């Protein structure tokens, strides 16, 4: 990535966090930490509470206990729009764009908190990162392909130069080549630029390749955590996430 899109990162951390819907906890006793310049990934089976955890960090789902901290600030149960203002960009797993709005309007909403005159330059900067969006600016977001749509969703959060990127399965439904490119080029790229990246990913192998640290969620709790190279040696992890039995070749 040639363009500076994000501000220096901040630490996003939780302590003894529990969160869920209608007062019922889906995730409990969660302590995770994501630091600037790193990709921190969360993997785990479907329904283990990965999305719920991310939503509780960005104010979409209610925190029932414990704390969420951004740098020194306690952002527990802050309104989503306030958390956005503090520099956390969140790309949800689904419903990640505004379908009836054009690509351009989606980016403009991404820059909603900016002064009007700052927006065109930011849009240009985001288009430098995702040049494919350039010639579809007037197309409705609902008409984009899966890959284009994810780029728009990421482009939307980059409009505010976030310090922290919270990405929920950005590669879901993408062709493997596109998914790899998205993770290795963009997601890793954000961290290389100094941002803090918290990534939920189904593709455990691909996630490990770009992560500095990985948490494994099971039944709403962190059941395992470690550096990728250690997890790759862990037989339980290999068995459940890296496609049983066969030890993966070291990636670097």
């Amino acid at each position, binding site marked *: 990535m040639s363009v500076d899109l994000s501000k220096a990162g901040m630490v996003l951390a939780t302590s003894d966090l529990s969160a869920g819907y209608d007062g019922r906890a889906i995730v409990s006793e969660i302590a995770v930490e994501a630091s600037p310049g790193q990709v921190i990934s969360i993997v785990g089976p479907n329904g283990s509470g990965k999305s719920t955890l991310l939503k509780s960090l960005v104010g979409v789902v209610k925190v029932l206990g414990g704390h969420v901290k951004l740098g020194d600030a306690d952002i527990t149960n802050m309104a989503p*729009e306030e958390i956005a203002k503090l520099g956390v960009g969140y790309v*949800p797993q689904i419903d990640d764009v505004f379908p009836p709005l054009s690509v351009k309007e989606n980016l403009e909403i991404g820059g909603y908190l900016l002064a009007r005159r700052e927006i065109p330059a930011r849009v240009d900067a985001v288009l430098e990162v995702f040049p494919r969006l350039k010639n579809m600016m007037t197309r409705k977001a609902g008409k984009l392909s899966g890959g284009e749509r994810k780029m728009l969703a990421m482009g939307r959060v980059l409009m505010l130069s976030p310090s922290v990127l919270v990405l929920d399965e950005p590669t879901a439904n993408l062709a493997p080549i596109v998914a790899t490119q998205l993770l290795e080029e963009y997601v890793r790229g954000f961290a290389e630029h100094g941002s803090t990246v918290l990534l939920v990913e189904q593709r455990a192998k691909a996630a490990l390749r770009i992560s500095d640290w990985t948490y494994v969620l099971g039944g709403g709790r962190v059941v395992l955590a470690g550096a990728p190279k250690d997890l790759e040696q862990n037989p339980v992890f290999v068995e459940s996430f890296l496609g049983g039995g066969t030890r993966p070749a070291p990636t670097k």
Partner: protein
Amino acid sequence: MSSFGFGLVTAAVLALATVGFTMQFAVTNVLNLAYGSVMINSAFVTYYLNIHGVPTWVALFGGVATGAIASWLLNQFVFTPFQRRNRPPITIVIVALGVDLVGTFGLQAIVGGSYVSFRQSPGHEYHFLGMFFSGLQLVILGIAVVVLGIIHWLLRYTRLGKAMRATSANPSLARNSGVKTKTIISTTWLISGALCGLAGTVFALNTGVFEATSAQLYIVLLLAAMFLGGPGEPYGAMFGALVIGLSTEISAAYVNPQYKEVIAFVALLGMLTFRPYGIFGSEKTL
């Protein structure tokens, strides 16, 4: 051909009303069945200002303000509390129906049941293309064109309008983008309420004589126009209003004018059966 001219004016009034109605539905998720009662209450505010000496076109702003404030209050103190308690949409619909009755018959209790009319001459008679228009009707047409143009500009080109559309499409994501959706929703009630007040006043002006229950059945026309164009679609609402306005007036020229609402209702049933998202609409596409 003269019924076509009538139909255009009816359509213009209906378009103003339907755009406000559909915006409320799109941005705030409330199918505000009390819309007709806010219209007629606003018309009466304009009327009282008018008979106390305020010129109609100035008094009109009183009606607009009434619509805006009444709608805002309605949202703040009736709809939002119910929504906050996560009541199902049907609850809100029933509550709105109740508000409509209270609004209409409350007004009737205050102003009485007799017909009134503005101190406003219909003005010159103009005719072109075989259609007749009074000066008053031309002013109503002009107001509709200008105001709908402003709404178009608001929704397409302003920060507020884009935030309204974003809130309509995906409120959660809008908040994650920094949009204070609560403020956007309040503002939407003010703007759509102003449209409601304006529509109520020009509706009463266009009708000539009116009373407290005159807008009771208007909700049928609103629903028909809204569903024809696709619920939550302001441009669809304009189109739907044109079709419903013209077809009800033209058919009223041939059959009993009393059947206006029936014709609209048949159109509504047809839409609900065959194209519930309207001619242009997908599910929700402000």
